[in-house]
């Protein structure tokens, strides 16, 4: 029988034998699954054997080459695997920046030694990775980063501060951009470096947001000695690596923001349902016509956006070139989420003002935190202003 069916059959066999039934329909935790690492957090005791068995068969990184711990699967086979997981309502055995960010980067830019050292440990979930790009003085202007990397024999000595390093407090290694040549023009003096966070001189400080606790940390480097062997690609060529990685991120944005019709409608009814709860009017309509119209407008915007994501997918399937969709999606989805979360708080009225404690129920408190957190959506990952600049320049061709 054709190889794909054969693969599917074998996979089902293996899943039946190895996937713990206890994990079926396991509610995905706030952290979004199992991130592995030296200090792993298991949402469920059976996640550990699930990770180990999946890793042993190369199913934590299905499409990576076998020699690095991957499954060596064809895209079609990998798709079958993820479909099977969905069908069986099984959680991914492993997630994290190792698999999604530094792994693909190593496969493209890493040396053979670097691949052999890091990829298998990523696949086995032994090492948790975080990203060290932004700095206090380099927000939208990433290339202006200042973290010093001074050469000392076979080592770089790193001194500086990275901010917005998500989950740095739970990570084992960090991939960071450092300034290795202060004299070169800014994009050309940057090196992409892998740093073991257990090294002396690394300190991590979690960041409180206006919405409360967050995964973000500030990570400081005080004369941290890092082997030159940990440089990815070439010294002072880090910007090339970073750009590729950013591009890779952007390509995921459509998937991130794409919302299924069903979910779309469900969402719609969330808004209207919420309004009925707080603004019950007579004859089924809402007592506040102004809010009623804002709700309809918000539903319009969400539906129009999800249709646009679908259109860009359909166009891609039809082999058409994508435009600067990623910037459009980023700016629209984030601004929409700001409007949406703000609208939900306005619907709740005074009940939407709670921070914690008595007089507010859990949902009310959560909605308010979500609204506050969403204010950051149009700042993180490229501000709305930067996205509009990109559209104006690269899509509309307006002059500098």
């Amino acid at each position, binding site marked *: 029988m054709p190889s794909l069916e054969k693969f599917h059959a074998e996979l089902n066999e293996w899943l039946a034998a190895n996937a713990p039934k206890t994990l079926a329909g396991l509610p995905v935790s706030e952290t979004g699954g199992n991130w592995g690492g030296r200090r792993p957090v298991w949402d469920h005791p059976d996640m550990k054997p699930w990770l180990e068995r999946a890793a042993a068969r190369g199913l934590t990184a299905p499409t990576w080459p076998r020699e690095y711990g991957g499954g060596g699967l064809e895209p079609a086979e990998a798709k079958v695997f993820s479909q099977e997981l969905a069908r069986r309502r099984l959680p991914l055995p492993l997630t994290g920046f190792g698999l999604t960010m530094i792994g693909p980067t190593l496969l493209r830019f890493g040396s053979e030694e670097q691949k052999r050292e890091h990829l298998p440990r990523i696949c086995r979930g032994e090492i948790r990775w975080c990203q060290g790009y932004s700095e206090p003085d380099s927000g939208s202007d990433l290339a202006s980063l200042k973290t010093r990397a001074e050469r000392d024999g076979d080592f770089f000595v790193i001194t500086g501060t990275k901010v917005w390093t998500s989950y740095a407090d739970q990570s084992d290694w960090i991939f960071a951009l450092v300034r290795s040549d202060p004299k070169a023009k800014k994009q050309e003096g940057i090196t992409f470096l892998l740093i073991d966070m257990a090294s002396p001189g690394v300190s991590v400080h979690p960041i409180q947001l206006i919405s409360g606790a967050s995964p973000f940390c500030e990570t400081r480097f005080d004369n941290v000695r890092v082997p030159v062997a940990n440089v990815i690609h070439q010294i002072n060529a880090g910007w090339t690596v970073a750009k590729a990685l950013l591009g890779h991120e952007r390509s995921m944005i459509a998937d991130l923001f794409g919302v299924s019709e069903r979910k779309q409608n469900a969402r*719609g*009814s969330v808004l*209207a349902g919420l*309004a*009925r709860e707080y603004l019950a009017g007579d004859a*089924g*309509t*809402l007592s506040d016509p102004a809010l*009623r*119209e804002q*709700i*309809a*407008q918000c*539903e*319009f*915007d969400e*539906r*129009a*956006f999800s*249709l*646009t994501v*679908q*259109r860009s997918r*359909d*166009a891609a*399937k*039809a082999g*058409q070139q994508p435009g600067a969709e990623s910037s*459009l999606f980023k*700016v*629209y989805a984030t601004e929409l989420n700001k409007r949406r979360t703000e609208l939900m708080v306005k619907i709740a009225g005074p009940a939407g003002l709670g921070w914690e404690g008595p007089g507010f129920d859990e949902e009310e408190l959560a909605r308010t935190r979500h609204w506050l957190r969403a204010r950051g959506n149009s700042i993180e990952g490229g501000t709305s*202003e930067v996205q*509009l*600049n990109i*559209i*104006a*320049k690269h*899509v*509309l*061709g*307006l*002059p*500098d």
Partner: protein
Amino acid sequence: MQLVLTEDQELLAKTAADFVAERSPVARMRQLRDKQDPDGFSRELWREMAELGWVGNPFPEAVGGAGMGLAELAVVLEALGRTLAPEPFLSCALLAGQALLLGGSEAQKSRWLPPLVAGEQLLTLAFQERRSRYDVRNVATRAERAGEGWRLSGEKIQVLDGISADGLIVSARTAGEQTDAAGITLFLIPRGAQGLANVRQQRIDSRGASLLTLTGVAVGAGDVVGTPGGGAELLATVVDRATVGLCAEMLGSMTAAFERTLTYLKQRVQFGVPIGSFQALKHRAAQCFIEIELTRSTVMAAARAIDAGDADAAKLVSLAKARCSDAFVLIGNEAVQMHGGIGMTDEHDIGFYLKRARVAEMTFGDAAFHRDRWARLSGY
């Protein structure tokens, strides 16, 4: 549904674009306005469009049509909208034509549809009244029983291409109060019928529109389109189809207005630099681009939903029309503002888009009307 053009649709778009570039620049519409053409469009070009199969696009082959859907017609109307071509697709091919196709008797269809599809005769639908605003069920025109038939009395305003039509389908009350859903009947009246007064109206977009006064116009049982008293549903259906056609036209118009503005932003120099280099204008232009992109998705979805007979087609029509109205008005305003003084002159074409945006917004319901309709259809 697939939100991407099929190869056939791409081809149709190409044909339409070439035709428009060659035969229908904005200057043509300006000439029609300047010489105060009574039709407000070119009958010659209309026949050519019919020969190209565009008029018959949403009709079955039996009457000479192409048996295609709104998705295809939308491609043509978008191209025509780019240069504000005023030919009577909405009134003839969509409003009246679809009413006959869906509700007409065999006799009516065989009498009217072949010449309509061939571009030789025109029909329109007269449904709007002084007090009806955007509610097609608000009908004061009355049809009183008279033997086997009725006598119609009342007034219809801004009847699209009413002055040019060989036949008019008129909504009138055979029963019920002014805003009841039940009791509305559609009648097909030939032009020049006894008691029919038809005056050309001048609107800001200078397209064909007329003020229709009926004074005891006699009609027979055979002139009823659809079922007596059941006209409201048929009206709603054909107006939704016409709305999608209008949306496609608006999409083409706003896209062209935006492109002209982009060109101007790149050419116009002030303070020694092109004004398109000013970030405030850049961001506003980017916002307009985003609005057009989202609007395009909603128009494609609405057309395909109607073609597929989807349950939520009506909601998608409201989504598309609300977005088209807001986006076209926004872009019309920004286009004139960014053109500066020259944009305020009648000599420059950009003002035509601003004017058409306002008329299109207020045809078949503005954005607020469709937000309310969406909310009602969503049960809140």
